[in-house]
């Protein structure tokens, strides 16, 4: 069963093709990493899959369903979760507030008007559980902007996981992290169950080769290579693009 299938997907801005006729499929449970030089269109691709941008042409299928025209918030209900390249947590709100909002997003009581948000025990317990697992329960009343960058990143990914998504899109999860924080993230990803499909965009080669079952290389919006890590490592075209990059 394919978790995601992208067919002939393109996105044009004026005359520029940020994503150019991209097609690939991702199996449920697969760990796919997308790499490519800056400006290759990786974040744009994520924006298309997650719905922040409408496609110029092409189709997107999620768990067999055509979601090309479906708005972002509906895609969350279908099971997509995304961590952004620039941390998108609500910086002026506290850790616990962020967690409450994140975990309420796909629940029916998010529209409730009259009970305090803390009334919904199921979610409150889940928040407590999630924050404790992230080792952030002690800091729950802190404003997110006062956390360290590594904590923020961990929190954003951890909250995405708390939603129990079917597809997890991680956009440069290692950016700005120390080696130690990065390996923490790698472990987090490795411990995910096979019911979650993970697509990651990143530059850090430890993370890429530590996690990927399959790698797609993007360049100027087009797929240059698509294969196992070993295939990619020996691919001459990839080497050409990444001339000078250390292993």
């Amino acid at each position, binding site marked *: 069963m394919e978790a995601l299938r992208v067919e002939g997907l393109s996105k044009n801005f004026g005359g520029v093709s940020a994503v150019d006729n991209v097609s690939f499929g991702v199996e449920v449970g697969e760990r796919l990493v997308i790499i490519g030089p800056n400006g290759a269109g990786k974040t744009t691709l994520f924006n298309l899959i*997650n*719905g*922040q941008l409408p496609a110029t042409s092409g189709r997107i299928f999620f768990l067999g369903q055509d979601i090309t025209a479906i*708005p*972002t*918030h509906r*895609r*969350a*209900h279908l099971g*997509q*979760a*995304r961590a*952004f390249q620039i941390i*998108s*947590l*609500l*910086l*002026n*709100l*506290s850790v*616990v*507030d962020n967690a*409450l*909002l*994140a975990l*309420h*997003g*796909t629940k029916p*009581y*998010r*529209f*409730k*008007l*009259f*009970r*305090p*948000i*803390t009334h*919904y025990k199921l979610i*409150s317990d889940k*928040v*407590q559980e999630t924050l404790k697992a992230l080792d952030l329960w002690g800091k*729950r*009343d802190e404003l997110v902007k006062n956390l360290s960058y590594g904590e923020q990143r961990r929190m954003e990914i951890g909250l995405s996981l708390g*939603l129990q998504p079917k597809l997890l899109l991680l956009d440069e999860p290692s950016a700005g992290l120390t080696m130690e924080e990065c390996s923490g993230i790698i472990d987090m990803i490795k411990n995910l169950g096979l019911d979650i499909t993970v697509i990651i965009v990143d530059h850090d080669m430890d993370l890429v080769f530590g996690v990927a079952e399959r790698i797609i290389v993007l360049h100027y919006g087009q797929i240059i290579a698509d294969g196992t890590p070993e295939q990619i490592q020996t691919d001459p075209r990839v080497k050409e693009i990444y001339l000078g990059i250390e292993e």
Partner: protein
Amino acid sequence: METAKQETITQPEGSQLVTFAPHVAGVVILVILPAFLSSYIQSVMTRFLIFALFAMGYNLAFGCAGLISLGHAAYFGAGGYAVAVLKLHYGSNLFWVGAPVGILVATLIAAIFGIIALRVSGIYFLLVTFALGQLLYSVAWNVSWLNTPGMQGIAGLSLPSFGIAGFTLNTTSFYYLVLLVSLICFYLLFRMVNSPFGRALVGIREGEARMRSLGYNTWLYKYIAFVISGAFAGIAGVLFGYYNYLISPTHLGVGTSFLPMCMAIIGGVGTFLGPVIGAAIIIFVELFASIMTPERWPLILGGLFVLAIMFAREGIGVYLWRLWNKVSYHYGSIKG
């Protein structure tokens, strides 16, 4: 509005009592004090409550959801006009008729205008709400059905009746009616702000893109917040229609729309009762100005507003709340 009444998951029980002490005290004062004051002061207090309600409802959209509306008088005035039209054309001054009709009309207009205004966001939203408010102003100016013949607006308004023989309202009893309505509304707003819906609004204000990817239909939230806030403006407008002897197009225009925004900012956008504090300040200063220099009141109002934005952006309310926090920490709260 997120830091004021933070209900985190484990909130120590004792501190709740202390946190709400000033509110209880305030209510007690509002209930008891006016009985001892002149009916003129009572009338001023009524005016204060009406505008406090207007500003509180406004702040659901403005402070909570971040929707900067400069046309909320459209819903306020609509409530007032409904009451006025009922009196002018149907001879009815019944509260049981005027209130629901007024609120309904205001909500309906907010529902229509909301769809148009929410086509854009941010500052453009401000412009559109402004233009729509002025549109309604023009309508009221030009449509003869909305005017007492020979003048602008509808005159001859009076306190509502209840259809109960021998029971007529006077200034004092009307004040208590307004107080009751206001307190009920404040309570409703309080529940809303702390509900999942209200918290989501704050989230949308802070990061709409993220909220969308979390599964929130942000447009719908903003729309509902806008319409609800219009409904509350309508309630205030209905009360105003009974309070004021006349309703005119001015009450639909930007001059009136500016007031709840001004009150919210001066009193504190981020605190729940900020708008009430702002309303108190503005009404009080207006009273003062009307005695000393009535022609310079707009200058004073504009000046206060500019000062608030430049130097006290969080509003007086936040300073008061912080002060109270320090006091209550000393004397009552149990830190969990």
